[in-house]
């Protein structure tokens, strides 16, 4: 049993092994419906995320597991129960793996220190979203074979993005160069120490990218005055058809979803030939099957 709390702390060979394992879980692979038969995977979602929850649920069921879905809405958390109380209650039902999504950074780690089963982080605050990073890396590897020497450009609200942090760590570990681009108010200090390069000039770096990973612009950031307007953001950092023109001919476009169409990514590009967005979704199930299998064993 091993927790997956983040990409931090995992070595390259371990990450590669996990991605290799995911390969076997692609549609058409060997039947794995016995892998977690009779065991329980508990989805603890303290923050709404139909996509990630569904992806973990499908992955668990395909491994033969029973799925316990617990969500914040209408739960006793609102009655003053602490995170650890909730986690211990779920643990008492004997799950093999607890999958946690939480709005506070570090929450899955706190749970992992106090329960006996494996804990998988399905996204915590602005900290990490390791399964997303693994499925992104898997998707790129599927296209390129290896990530070494490739440049991945991550564009948008890095400050609030767990996807950006996990991807930065994961892509670097797998040998890629990672450039982070966004308005200065949304790029926190210290990204270089995590291995990233930082720029605010999208048009200058766009031609270097082998893949562009758009981050979802959380529109509530507007009221906090990180940005003057959605319109200005879109003008400076949106991936428009004109910008797509200036990318390398075979450069890919990724997005963790759900997309604000026309804000960070124009519909033409999202649905165009560069886009691997639906492959990301499909690969997500295979990668999560590999994660659950690894953590439950």
């Amino acid at each position, binding site marked *: 049993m091993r927790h997956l709390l983040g990409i*931090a702390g995992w070595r390259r060979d371990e990450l590669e092994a996990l991605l290799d394992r995911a390969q076997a879980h692609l549609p058409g692979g060997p039947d794995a419906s016995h892998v977690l038969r009779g065991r329980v995977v508990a989805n603890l979602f303290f923050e709404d995320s139909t996509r990630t929850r569904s992806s973990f649920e499908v992955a668990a069921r395909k491994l033969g597991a029973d799925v316990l879905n617990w969500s914040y809405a209408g739960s006793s958390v609102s009655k003053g129960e*602490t*995170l*650890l109380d909730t986690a211990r209650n779920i643990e008492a039902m004997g799950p093999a793996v607890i999958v946690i999504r*939480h709005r*506070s*950074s*570090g*929450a899955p*780690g*706190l749970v992992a220190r106090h329960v006996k089963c494996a804990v998988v982080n399905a996204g*915590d*605050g*602005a*900290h*990490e979203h390791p399964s997303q990073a693994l499925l992104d890396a898997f998707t790129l590897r599927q296209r390129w074979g290896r990530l070494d020497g490739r440049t991945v450009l991550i564009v948008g609200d890095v400050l609030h993005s*767990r996807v950006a*942090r996990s991807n930065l760590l994961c892509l670097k570990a797998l040998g890629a160069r990672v450039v982070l681009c966004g308005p200065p108010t949304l790029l*926190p*200090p*210290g*990204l270089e*120490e*995590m291995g990233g390069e930082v720029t605010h000039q999208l048009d200058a770096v766009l031609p270097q990218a082998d893949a562009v990973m758009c981050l979802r612009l959380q529109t509530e950031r507007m009221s906090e005055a990180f940005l003057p307007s959605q319109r200005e953001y879109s003008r400076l950092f949106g991936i428009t058809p004109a910008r797509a023109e200036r990318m390398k001919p075979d450069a890919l476009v990724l997005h963790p979803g759900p997309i604000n169409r026309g804000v960070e990514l124009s519909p033409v590009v999202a649905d165009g030939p560069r886009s691997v967005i639906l492959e990301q979704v499909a690969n997500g199930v295979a990668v999560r099957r590999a994660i659950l299998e690894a953590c439950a064993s």
Partner: protein
Amino acid sequence: MTPVLFQRARVIDPRNGVDGVRDVLVTDGRVAQVSEAPLPAPKDARVVDATDKWLVPGFIDLHVHLREPGEEGKETVLTGCRAAVAGGFTGVVAMPNTKVVNDSALVTELVLSRARDAGLCHVYPAGAITKGLKGEELSEAGELIGAGCVALTDDGRPVMNAGLMRRVLQYATQFDVPVMVHEEDLTLSAGGAMHEGATSTRLGLRGIPSSAEVAMVARDLVLLEETKGRLHVAHVSCEGSVRLIREAKQRGLRVTCEVAPHHFTLDDRAVGDYDTHAKMAPPLRGDVDVKALREALVDGTVDAIATDHAPHGVSDKLVEFEKGINGIVGLETALGLTLALVHEGVLTPRRAVELLSDGPARVFGLPGGHLAPGAPADITLLSPSEEWTVDAHRFYSRSRNTPFHGRTLKGRVTQTWVGGRCVFEDGQLKESR
């Protein structure tokens, strides 16, 4: 009261320029004689062999949260005093942000009466600047000071209203007490859980920039210059603040400041894996700041080491980092952490003692802080090189929230004397009741 003769102690008394082996005689609760030549023991005297020990003025902590009235489950005046004398402190200044705010003589008197009942060390209450700490109306400073308050502060919160801050600095000049400030621009720190830097980015936590503190220090120094008041900056945490305070002192402004042991010992990396025991306000800062604080301790910019002793229950810390309550207990680790700077060669023994005794006494105009004949016999006797391992479960404080649990410290209190009475000796309290 039994006379006491301390023999062959290394006496460090910065105010009187003493650092050497001396005999010290205490009679009637006061220092009677400090002598290079051995002193004869008076009849019935208790004789303490202090060979290899440091005998220093009792420590005074300008910044302690005793939690009474209102949160007695975290600490009481009694348990706080126990922790104080176990840490070598003979006097503590009690912050007014209790759950009935100390903004009236009634609360001041309650704290003083609890302290008398405890009978361990001096407790000097600080009164609130504003009624209910709401930052709206000035509290009755005259009444508070009349009842025994030694300073005015809304600690725990900044005074965000500059007009109000200007008026309290002016108003307090008639009593000549310091206005103690918790410097934090809430619009800059909003939502922040730790220092803004590489660690907050890695952990995905909203950062509190240094400017949240420095901008307020700058504002208050401007107001201080205009009002000719007295400003005491609590728990200074970053380089920018230190620089501004140093310049202001050079220009002759009446500003003083304190630094907490955790801020000169740890940097933001101590948050590590979301350790809520490393969560405090102001937050642990960057390594540059730690270095700047250490320089400021050496060059006199910092007047006092104060712990910001902030007791909290286990359940306040066993939560998501963002939800964790700010603060750590500090009374029982302050000496060891301060002496670490001596052992590292950063501070001289004399300067370290000064920062814990004479410095704080001067800042708030408190008795003690030195050992001239006639001074109250508030004395700390310590073994400077004795190693011990911090065990939070053995604290005299009612709370255990410390990031230093398990750390080995060098330097331990062997006896604490208040007014000529031994209140703590060899790890045991000597309570009068």
